[in-house]
């Protein structure tokens, strides 16, 4: 058990180093990620969520295809929807294309980075790296601050 844990930690560190070195990759210099934030978790059993605005400042459309983070084994972009009867549901959002000059908001009640299979609890006051991958092979890594569990926005 102890051995297994140690192995997982080593893997996490390895992944984190890989994640932090990601911004050096080409093809994503036109993508700006702003106002990233997330809520603290209770333990690791519940999925976490992170929010941000992804802006395409370039001349060409970009397509956001996936996420990676050492914090969670299964990070995915999901979308919450509420139908006319007031029933909320959540589905994987698939690929998201951002036209030149446009931005996509990941915000409560809509698109969000869902962090499934947390490797460690999300603790208020800490940050974690989140890498956004794009269809052209580009990547952008952003440090996401972890706010309180009752936070309502990037300001807390």
């Amino acid at each position, binding site marked *: 058990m102890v051995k297994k844990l140690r192995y997982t930690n080593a893997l996490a560190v390895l992944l984190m180093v890989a994640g932090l070195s990601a911004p050096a990759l080409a093809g994503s210099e036109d993508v700006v990620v702003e106002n990233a934030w997330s809520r603290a978790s209770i333990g690791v059993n519940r999925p976490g*969520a992170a929010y941000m605005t992804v802006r395409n400042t370039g001349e060409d459309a970009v397509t956001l295809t996936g996420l990676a983070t050492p914090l969670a084994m299964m990070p995915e972009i999901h979308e919450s929807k509420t139908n006319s*009867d007031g029933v909320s549901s959540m589905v994987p959002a698939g690929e998201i294309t951002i036209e030149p000059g446009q931005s996509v908001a990941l915000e*409560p009640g809509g698109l969000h980075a869902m*962090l499934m299979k947390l490797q460690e609890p999300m603790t208020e006051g800490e940050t974690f790296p989140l890498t956004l991958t794009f269809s052209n092979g580009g990547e952008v890594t952003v440090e996401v601050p972890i706010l*309180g569990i009752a*936070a*309502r926005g990037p300001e807390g």
Partner: protein
Amino acid sequence: MQRRQLVLYGAAGAGFLGLTLFVGWWRVDGPGAPEPKGQRPLPLSAMEFRLTDHEENEVGPGNLIGRPTMVFFGFTYCPDVCPTTLSDISGWLEELGDEASEMNVVFITVDPERDTVEAMAEYVGYFHPVIRGWTGPEDQIARAAEGFRASFERVPTEGGGYTMNHTASVFLFDAEGELVTMIDYHEPREFAVPKIRRALTEDVEGAT
């Protein structure tokens, strides 16, 4: 002759308008309305269910009568909609200030399998202290949801787990347990807070 024509057109117009209104009524409020989702929640006094609050007290709809009440459904393994609703409600309660302590505010889980009394206690502890968390056997939760005309459904996820679809509206009742109104999911504070104030004042007027 011209006048007669005018009257005729007028009558036809009025008839058409009447028919339109009738069709509208039929489809929205009348026998043609979709059942049961379009129905209003029952008064609290007409509901029957037994649950346990996050401090292990036996509770039911009867406990809510006597004070204005806010009820909503959710589950603690919900990463987006539920913490957002809970923090929205916490914000509304902060704005109400002292008045908030005159209300019942209840979060009923739709996921009793994972939301035990202990899980609910830990979770609600992070939000406004007025908020109570209720859980219990699945059949009792189903009866509660039926009373509120709320729905929930278990949906498997690809990782082998599951998530819950559920009604995300907030139900507002006056002190006598009659529905005042509902607050939609993520409704802006400037609309939500006056609605809550209405439930609080109906408490005074509702003495008749």
